[in-house]
C-alpha cells in the first residue's frame, strides 16, 4: 500500500507548491490592479461624521471571500506547529484575503452609486473542516462590511476628515 502513498504525497506537495505559488503571484498582480481602480472610494473605520458632511442616503455594503491554503503550505505550517513561532506562510494568505474583501465591498458600493464607506469592519471566521480528522476542505472567510453613504454636492471628503 504504502509504496503508492510514498509517491503520491511528494507529488502532491510538489504540484501544490508550484501551482500555489503561481496562483498567489497572479492574485497579487490582480489586487494591485483592482486597488488602483477603486481608489476613488473612500473607506474609513470612523463612525462619527464631520459636521459639514451632509448625507443623502446610506446602505449596508459587504464583500466576502473564502480562501484556503494550498497543500504544501499547510504541510509546512504543520511542521512549524511542532517547533512553534510565527507561521509565516499563513500571513500573506490572510492579507490577500482582506485586501480582496475590501475591494469587493468597495466594488459593491461603487456599483450602487456610493463613493464613501464609513464604519468599516473586518471579520474573520474559520469554516469547519468537512472531516473530523482535520483533513478535507477547510477555509477562512473574511467579511468586510460598512455603511456606504452618498454625500450632497459640494462636500469635500478628503480635507474635512477629522
Amino acid at each position, binding site marked *: 500500500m504504502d509504496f503508492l502513498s510514498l509517491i503520491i504525497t511528494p507529488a502532491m506537495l510538489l504540484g501544490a507548491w508550484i501551482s500555489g505559488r503561481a496562483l498567489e503571484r497572479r492574485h497579487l498582480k490582480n489586487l494591485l490592479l483592482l486597488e488602483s481602480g477603486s481608489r476613488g472610494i473612500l473607506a474609513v473605520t470612523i463612525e462619527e461624521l464631520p459636521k459639514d458632511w451632509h448625507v443623502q442616503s446610506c446602505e449596508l455594503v459587504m464583500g466576502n471571500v473564502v480562501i*484556503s*491554503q494550498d497543500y504544501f503550505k499547510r504541510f509546512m505550517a504543520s511542521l512549524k506547529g511542532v517547533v512553534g513561532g510565527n507561521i509565516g506562510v499563513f500571513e500573506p494568505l490572510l492579507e490577500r484575503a482582506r485586501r480582496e474583501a475590501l475591494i469587493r465591498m468597495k466594488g459593491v458600493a461603487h456599483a450602487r452609486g456610493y463613493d464613501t464607506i464609513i464604519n468599516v469592519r473586518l471579520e474573520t471566521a474559520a469554516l469547519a473542516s468537512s472531516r473530523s480528522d482535520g483533513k478535507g476542505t477547510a477555509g477562512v472567510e473574511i467579511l468586510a462590511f460598512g455603511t456606504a453613504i452618498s454625500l450632497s454636492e459640494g462636500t469635500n471628503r478628503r480635507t474635512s476628515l477629522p
Partner: protein
Amino acid sequence: MIISNTQEIPGKSIIQFFGVVTGSTVRAKHIGRDIMAGLKNVVGGELTQYTELLSEARGEAIRRMSHQAEEMGANAIVNVRFATSSVAQGAAELFAYGTAVTVE
C-alpha cells in the same frame, strides 16, 4: 428598510426604538460544490463556491432580519452585526442582528 452598521442613520434622527431583531440561517455545503472546493483546497486560493454560498446565506439572514423589523413597524435597522459559527461539520450558521428603529 434602511440598514446600517452605524449607531445612527447618517443624516436622519431616531424617533423610536423597537428592540433587537435577528435573522439567521444554517447552510450545509452542496455535495457538488464540496467536491470542487476539495480539489481547489489542494492548490489553494479562493473557494469561489463557498464565497457565493456564504454571501447568499448572509443575504437570506439579512432578509429575515428586515422582515422581522417590518412586522414591528420599524423603517430602519441600526448597528447591524454579523456572526458566523460552525455548528456542525460542513455546516455554518450565518447570523445577523441589529436594533430596529423608526427614523425620520
